């Protein structure tokens, strides 16, 4: 096989493979887009996303509630201490 034939065959094959690949790539892109669109309108996927959002919100609310509970517990403890102190003072005053 002479050099010219080799070069011609190589160029033709290169162009052919580029054409085949461009076509296949375009098809893959279209399929991927269709799948993405399908997913965005799919009820199951939407429901799953909605559930995920709700779980995140509930997790946030639970953390805030824990924080508030801790604060309230501290306040109650403080008030109990104050209450017992005041009772003792009242008792002392009553005795006097």
């Amino acid at each position, binding site marked *: 096989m002479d050099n010219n034939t080799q070069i011609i*065959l190589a160029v033709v094959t290169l162009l052919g493979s580029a054409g085949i*690949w461009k076509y296949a790539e375009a098809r893959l892109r279209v399929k991927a887009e269709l799948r993405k669109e399908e997913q965005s309108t799919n009820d199951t996927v939407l429901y799953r996303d909605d559930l995920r959002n709700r779980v995140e919100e509930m997790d946030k609310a639970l953390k805030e509630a824990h924080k508030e509970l801790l604060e309230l517990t501290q306040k109650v403890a403080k008030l109990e201490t104050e209450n017992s102190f005041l009772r003792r003072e009242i008792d002392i005053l009553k005795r006097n």
Partner: protein
Amino acid sequence: MNRLKLKAQEIKAKLTARIDSLRIIWQYSDSQPTEITLAAALVILYPIATYLELGYSPIMQVLAPIAGLYQLYCVSGRCLSCRVRASWVTFSFYLLAAVMYLYCGLLFKGPSYWGWILLSVSSFGSLKRIKKEELHRKNG
């Protein structure tokens, strides 16, 4: 008779499931091992085979091993776009070999030459798998 029919349906369903499974594996499985094999064949086997059977051809015996090394470099770098490029080059070289063998009248001389078609199909499949992975990562 009914039992035979049921058995046949069962076998058909099983076979269909297995074929589907093979199709999914072919389309979506990891292609790195295939890429490495194809690249190694391009570096070692390709120049020797084409030199012994087609004669001296600088395009095939000098550029193909470089392309194979590039493919190995891309696989080791884990860069998807680089792998797509390298796989396309690999596919082009295997297709070129098939075309050259066809031109020289060797491709249908013996079944062992059909290996070039098999390698072309395999490299094209690998190329499609990587592109799918790239699109999947882009689209999420």
